[in-house]
């Protein structure tokens, strides 16, 4: 399936290592969660980027100790109606400060692009090739957002206060938002 990153189709540099075989030398790998947790120290010595495929019924807190050494976390939507990974994505970005590639996999359809990006995903593994072209328009569909999320847009409530020049008594909505915004705007995964 095509991978969209920043609105462009990119090649998948990663290889999925499913069985007990050793990760191939020099090639970025995605490891299933159970195997990764069983052997994290060893796997993190791999000589290329390491990513983890994390199921949607396991707490992402378990992954927290390793996040600074992971280049990628792939979360899964078994169907687009199963929204558990939205919570996982926000927790990874906003609570655990994960800055690497956050990849949405599974039934990823154009009508969910906006929700996914707002929840913190920066790479989408799109289910229908025809949906790729819809990415730019899907992200431009809305210009007003009622709530703040980690991806850096300003909520309508803040904009209203700014407009009516009522003094804003709290700080910016999310400390990490500009950094995440920058990461969305064109970082290459390592």
């Amino acid at each position: 399936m095509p991978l969209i990153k920043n609105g462009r189709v990119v090649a998948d540099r990663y290889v999925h290592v499913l069985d007990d075989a050793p990760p191939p030398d020099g090639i970025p790998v995605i490891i299933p969660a159970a195997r990764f947790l069983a052997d994290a120290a060893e796997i993190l010595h791999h000589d290329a980027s390491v990513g983890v495929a994390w199921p949607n019924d396991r707490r992402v807190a378990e992954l927290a100790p390793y996040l600074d050494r992971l280049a990628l976390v792939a979360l899964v939507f078994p169907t687009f109606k199963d929204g558990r990974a939205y919570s996982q994505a926000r927790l990874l970005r906003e609570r655990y400060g994960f800055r690497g590639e956050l990849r949405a996999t599974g039934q990823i359809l154009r009508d969910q692009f906006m929700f996914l990006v707002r929840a913190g995903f920066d790479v989408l593994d799109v289910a229908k090739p025809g949906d790729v072209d819809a990415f730019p328009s899907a992200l431009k569909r809305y210009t007003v957002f009622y709530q703040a999320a980690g991806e850096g847009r300003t909520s309508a409530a803040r904009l209203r206060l700014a407009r009516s020049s009522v003094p804003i008594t709290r700080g910016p909505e999310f400390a990490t938002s500009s950094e995440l915004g920058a990461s969305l705007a064109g970082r290459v995964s390592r």
Partner: protein
Amino acid sequence: MYIYDEFDRTLVAERVAEFRDQVGRRISGELTEDEFKPLRLMNGVYLQLHAYMLRIAIPYGTLSSRQLRMLAHVGRRYDRNYGHFTTRQNIQFNWIKLEDLPDAMADLASAGLHGMQTSGNCVRNITTDQWSGVAPDEIEDARIWAELLRQHTTLHPEFSFLPRKFKIAVTAAAQDRAAVKVHDIGLRLHRNGAGETGFEVLVGGGLGRTPFIAKSIRPFLPKRDVLSYVEAILRVYNQFARRDNLYKSRIKILVHDLGAEAFAREVEAEWQHIKDGPLALDPAVVAEIAARFRYPEYARLDDDPPELTQLRKADRRFDAWLCNAVTNHKVPGYAIVTLSLKPEGGAPGDATSDQMDAIADLADRYSFGEIRVGHDQNLAFPHVAQRDLPELWRALDAVGVATPNVGLVSDIIACPGLDYCSLANARAIPVAQELTRRFRDLDLARDLGRLHINISGCINACGHHHVGHIGILGVEKNGEEFYQITLAGRADERAELGTLLGPAVPYAKVADVVEEVVAAYVELRERPNETFIETVKRIGVEPFKERVYATH
């Protein structure tokens, strides 16, 4: 009234454009019905027995006369000249065509109306007391909090694909008119010992096939924390509720399975991480929302003007109407007037486009252009000068919405049932219609006092039968419609589920059985003003059961 600004207007317009594109893709075949389904559901479009059905949100039940005229227009232009007000302060149009939907949505958007949060597995239209802002027993206007929550949960990036639909209700009055104890989250605004206002948080209430009264998980939540606390509840729910079984995926099952204390601990742990983050409410944000609720410039008037007292003596019909349709207002000289959408033989909650137009005109003349929609499927005028009541009564009577039965036995709540709904097992509307004929004698109805009948055409309980004083549930047995009767349920601050009377009875017997139950109550009550539920509470269902099943 809540006044939309450019942000609200832009969002609704963008929503229409998105939906137009989605309908276009469905019509061209690019989207399968399966893929289209959740998209249309996020805009309030269902596929019913005969046609698509469009459900429009009426946040916290507040409508302007202009919006009501727009609903009349949609009924006339795209439907069959009527709409159906629901138990969740929404309105539904039952006969709309797929290809007309984008235009209907665009027309609605021009008046600030939309179908967001009326279906799908998201946070649904947030409901409140239909008398918010004018009820004498409220401590503040609950709609401000409903609006803050509405905005926060609309197109939420994390909570638009929840395990199941999610309903939140807010009350700020001593008497709970929002049924908060049968919602996924109930928020009860109250004053603590120190005189501060905050929310009691209840979770896991709900009806359907597994009814539960909500459990209180926090006695007092400061107002600044309401968004973060709701976010914490939703996050726990989104991650841990069951998704393998449609019937076990509501939050009530999660709360029941974990236990309220363990659930509360999960929420509390999650909340500690986010309570002081961006969701902590800035007083300026609350003030900005509150400032966009506009209240009328009331005149200085006295209560009980002479013209009222005179007509009450002169006209029994007026007196009867005044006694049950007119309620005290927080401002002297004013009243809240309920418009009964329960005429004899009518379908509960239905209003024709002509009626909606006429009601909008009357609202302009007598209620500062504002109308309310209640979960009892009636409308209300929230700001009527008492001296105008005689004139207004005649005008409402001419429109057919002054049946003096508000809160009485023929003020029946019913879902659309098998006449419209693809989920239903049995008819609900014809049962309601027949009961309104049986109880057409308004002297009898007044003598019976408060008696709420709720009818659902299936176990999903859209007619809230579990919490009806008399609850009627349609079931299907060997291809025939049968009805289970429950007694003494209630949805208010002392919410309770009704008790089953006995075996289900066939369609043809339902009205007889209800009449029998009511007759038994009249005989068994201790004193004339012992209400129906008080009598059942005192003596149990057994005496009713004996009597009903001895005769039938």
